């Protein structure tokens, strides 16, 4: 049995969600997901069975994302609404609604500085505890909370949810 691949396959939905929270659009997100899975398959010798594969994968994906964003221009940002529209396809009405909502929230996420976005993605989208997120990002708890506070305030202001 290939327990490694099976466990990894089980994580794919969460990894795709994390990738979307980090990326400009769904296509970039799936490219990021593919790159991360390729990396994980190559690095499988470094994976210690019995430890948490999700944390390991989040870290791999975050590194892939940093590599990609560093080497890429920001031009893609302009195309967000159009890409979001193309992705709708023939999904049901509920899915389209979700896409529109995703577009708005994703656009707000895109405007966050990378370091705030990754903190928000891990804690608010992936639902990790502060401690887990800080470990994945390799930063102290205090740094994580201050990035979270700033990221959330910016999102609330953009999404009109400020108290």
């Amino acid at each position, binding site marked *: *049995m*290939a327990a490694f*691949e*099976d*466990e*990894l*396959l*089980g*994580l*794919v*939905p*969460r990894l*795709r*969600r994390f*990738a*979307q*929270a980090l990326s400009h659009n*769904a*296509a970039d*997100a*799936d*490219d990021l997901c*593919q*790159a991360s*899975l*390729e*990396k994980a*398959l*190559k690095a499988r010798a470094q994976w210690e069975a019995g430890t*948490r594969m*999700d944390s390991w994968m989040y870290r791999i994906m975050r590194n892939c994302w940093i590599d*990609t964003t560093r*080497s890429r221009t920001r031009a893609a940002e302009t195309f967000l609404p159009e890409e979001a529209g193309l992705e709708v396809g023939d999904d049901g009405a509920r*899915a389209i609604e*979700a*896409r529109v*909502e*995703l577009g*708005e*929230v*994703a656009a707000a996420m895109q405007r966050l500085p990378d370091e705030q976005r990754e903190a*928000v993605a891990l*804690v*608010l*989208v992936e*639902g990790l*505890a*502060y401690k887990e997120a800080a470990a994945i990002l390799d930063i102290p708890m205090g740094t994580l*909370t*201050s990035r*979270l*506070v700033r990221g*959330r*305030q910016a*999102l*609330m202001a953009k*999404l009109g*949810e*400020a*108290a």
Partner: protein
Amino acid sequence: MIPDEAMLMAYADGELDALTAKRVERAIAADPSLADVVAAHRALRERLGQAFGAASEEPVPARFAAMLASNVTPLPTPRPAWPRRWIEAGAIAASLVLAVAVGHQWQSGPVKVSGDRVVASGSLGHALDTQLASASGDTHMLVSFRDDRGSYCRVFATAAIDGIACRDQDQWVLRETRSPLHTAGSEYRQAGSADAPLMASAQDMMKGDPLDAAAERRARDAGWR
């Protein structure tokens, strides 16, 4: 104590120890405007969760399922069959995968690549061939039906993968796959935790009603033709 924004946020996220949380609650009781801050933090979490949640509920794209099929082996050389954008991104390293399962089905994982399709293999293929919905085991057959082309399709659930497979000639082609619910950590998968979106897809694909036990048995005995 007047809690600052970071503390209110941590309170909203359930990150404070009991003692500190109590203090924040006392402060909120004294100043109801703080409750609005907490509510705004919770609302934002909710909204983000919903916006991105769809990504985790979609079926796993076949290309990822194929990558992780346990009978695939990394190849040292890149091939041009991948999305152009990706090649242009320069990230196509030495990690492409190719199925090499031929002749080794008994060793393979639950899926393999056949031509450009992902098909069931190994124990999953066997279960799809033989197992009735009434049977229990590591693999569950949730429902069997005919699609609009008259092919037999079956919704299955295993520890590693859930999905819908449809009969095409002598193979079970995977039409949709999902990771099973609650695969994180060591949570045990509960029997019968049918994936609702998967069942909804089956409903959409289905022509007429699902097969009853007798019809399913007849279909199996006739080799799903």
